[in-house]
């Protein structure tokens, strides 16, 4: 894992000291809220409905045990004993007091973490495939590039006041687990015909009020050109992006309005101009960073105990069926720990659970943890012979829910339970849907299904790319939930289509139940997923299930 060098350490400490002074001046009244707001946002501090919220970056979703333990300590000492993992691989604390925030940032700096650029119109936390460095389908570990991008973008003087926020995601695998086509820049590590490794560069993707699938700007970018090329993109956007209208300011609109060809021309022109300024220093830095991401020393030992435990314990077997993924090293598995217990808040972990996960990572996981954009925690490197012990410990901590990728593994934004921008609540809807499917005991029959819920049009809950998306709105002073169908956040990214009129808070859960049980009758066989059935049949049969009375009226 990357460890801060003296420069990183000095920079983060200096920023904490600077922010401490700013908080003091805000509290004594010498800074107004208007003056203070951009300063606190630069350090990840929001003011929400019931309290401040501190958003801490987990760069490319990677943590070690000591960092996870520190997140637990912060939750206990300055918050209410829990944290919320987000769709951008961050963790949010919902209840900090203004005066405590500098101490929280200091505690983060103690373990090489910060909250810098987790807000504001800057380049945000660079996200990556949560299976990076472990996945069996990976060309290269994308995290050294993500770390290089983090260092380049942190406090980059040219990019502190972009037209709007800017999000970059990187993946090294063909199967896109990082939603790269819904980012301002998506980087996919590819191999060209000559066998060289480089990047396919995708730009202009994004969800929000104008969802767009990213477009390929460059089919193949040599690895060494990563920083100058990204800098060219962001500087073209910085000049061309609209500042007159917040809703038209993201690069997806810039690309849409100017056309991909023009953006390509401008970026290539700019790239040629600035490329020589990157005189190899970036590559020297990359080499240093890569040394920090060498794979752990995987051990070779028998896995017989694992098979025996699977046979002996049906609950363990069920968990291994849903929560494990293929690992590149023989005898290893990737463990996804579900932070989606039925009826609980998606993405919320208590400090005690964080400590259990940190301990398991240390004992059985080569000291590594990941946060996924699907709001779960990953132990990327666990030997199969240790899985039964890991499972037993997770079960003790209420972390052994066997539902990864299933109907109750729901992404939900904080919604109007916390967020000042929300137009409706999302958490209770997620809780009720998960509880209902658990009562029905059908989610394993349903199979792969991604339900994603946002509490406003900004789409933090990724509803556009949910197989079933739910968008909470305020309709004449009442919460109302719109359904979209057929969304997909993988390498075949698709924006879901709106099914029809929205549902009230009381009617939305029965509507989802109707939709999913209706799908069971529509699928060609039990292997056809919800998304495949939708793609085969289109919207109409699902619409008929969702709006039965209307269907009858039309038929009459």
């Amino acid at each position, binding site marked *: 894992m990357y460890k801060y060098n003296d420069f990183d350490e000095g920079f983060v400490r200096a920023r904490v000291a600077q922010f401490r002074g700013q908080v003091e001046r805000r509290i004594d009244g010498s800074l107004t*809220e208007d003056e203070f707001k951009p300063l606190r946002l630069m350090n990840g501090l929001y003011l929400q409905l019931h309290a401040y919220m501190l958003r801490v970056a987990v760069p490319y979703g990677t943590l070690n045990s000591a960092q996870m333990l520190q997140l637990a300590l912060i939750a206990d000492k300055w918050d209410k004993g829990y944290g919320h993992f987000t769709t951008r691989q961050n963790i949010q604390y919902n209840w900090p007091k203004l005066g405590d925030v500098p101490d929280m940032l200091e505690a983060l700096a103690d373990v090489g973490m910060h909250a810098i650029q987790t807000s504001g119109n800057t380049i945000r936390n660079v996200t990556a495939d949560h299976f990076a460095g472990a996945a069996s389908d990976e060309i290269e570990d994308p995290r050294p590039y993500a770390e290089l991008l983090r260092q380049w973008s942190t406090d980059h003087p040219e990019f502190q006041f972009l037209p709007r926020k800017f999000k970059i995601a990187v993946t090294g695998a063909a199967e896109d687990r990082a939603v790269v086509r819904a980012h301002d820049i998506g980087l996919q590590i590819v191999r060209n015909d000559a066998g060289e490794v480089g990047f396919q560069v995708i730009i202009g993707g994004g969800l929000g009020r104008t969802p767009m699938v990213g477009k390929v700007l460059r089919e193949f970018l040599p690895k060494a050109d990563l920083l100058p090329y990204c800098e060219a993109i962001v500087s073209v956007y910085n000049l061309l992006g609209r500042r007159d209208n917040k809703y038209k300011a993201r690069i997806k609109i810039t690309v849409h309005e100017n056309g991909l060809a023009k953006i390509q021309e401008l970026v290539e022109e700019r790239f040629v101009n600035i490329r020589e300024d990157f005189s190899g220093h970036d590559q020297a830095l990359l080499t240093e960073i890569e040394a920090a991401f060498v794979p752990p020393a995987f051990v070779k030992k028998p896995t017989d105990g694992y098979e025996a435990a699977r046979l002996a314990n049906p609950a363990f077997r069920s968990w291994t069926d849903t929560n494990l993924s293929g690992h590149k090293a023989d005898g290893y598995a990737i463990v996804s720990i579900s932070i989606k217990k039925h009826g609980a808040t998606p993405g919320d972990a208590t400090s005690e659970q964080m400590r259990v996960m940190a301990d398991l990572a240390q004992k059985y996981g080569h000291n590594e943890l990941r946060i996924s954009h699907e709001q779960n925690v990953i132990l990327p490197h666990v030997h199969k012979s240790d899985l039964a012990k890991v499972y037993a410990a997770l079960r003790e901590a209420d972390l052994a829910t066997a539902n990864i990728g299933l109907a109750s593994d729901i992404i939900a934004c904080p919604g109007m339970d916390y967020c000042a921008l929300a137009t409706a609540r999302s958490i209770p809807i997620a809780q009720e849907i998960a509880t209902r499917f658990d009562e029905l005991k059908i989610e394993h029959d349903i199979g792969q299904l991604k339900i994603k819920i946002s509490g406003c049009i900004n789409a933090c809950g990724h509803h556009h790319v949910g197989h079933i998306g739910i968008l909470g709105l305020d309709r004449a002073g009442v919460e109302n939930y719109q359904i979209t169908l057929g969304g997909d956040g993988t390498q075949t990214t698709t924006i879901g289509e709106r099914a029809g009129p929205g549902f009230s808070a009381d009617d939305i859960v029965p509507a989802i139940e109707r939709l999913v049980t209706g799908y069971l009758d529509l699928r060609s066989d039990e292997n056809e997923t919800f998304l495949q059935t939708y793609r085969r049949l289109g919207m109409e049969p699902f619409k008929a299930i969702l709006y039965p009375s209307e269907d009858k009226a039309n038929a009459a």
Partner: protein
Amino acid sequence: MARIFTPKVVTANALLEGDAVWLTEDNTWTRNIAEAELITDEAHGDLRLLEAQARADEIAGAYLADARPGSSGPEPVHFREAFRTRGPSNYHHGKQAE
């Protein structure tokens, strides 16, 4: 015809804790909306908002929110404002726990 003015309260977030507070008639901040001043005159509302915004070292983000008279004092009209009087629905945290 003149537009009918919907009664309002001045509300904000407390500077240190960040939780919801409401302005009372005697110029204090209360954590109970029922103790807030119910403003029924538009010009008076604008003035009270200006006065609230000037108190930068006590609160942040003051605004006028719709309210209606209730049996024990002003009550929120919109569900967002109702949530602010209670706290989140997923945990017994915030005002409902105080």
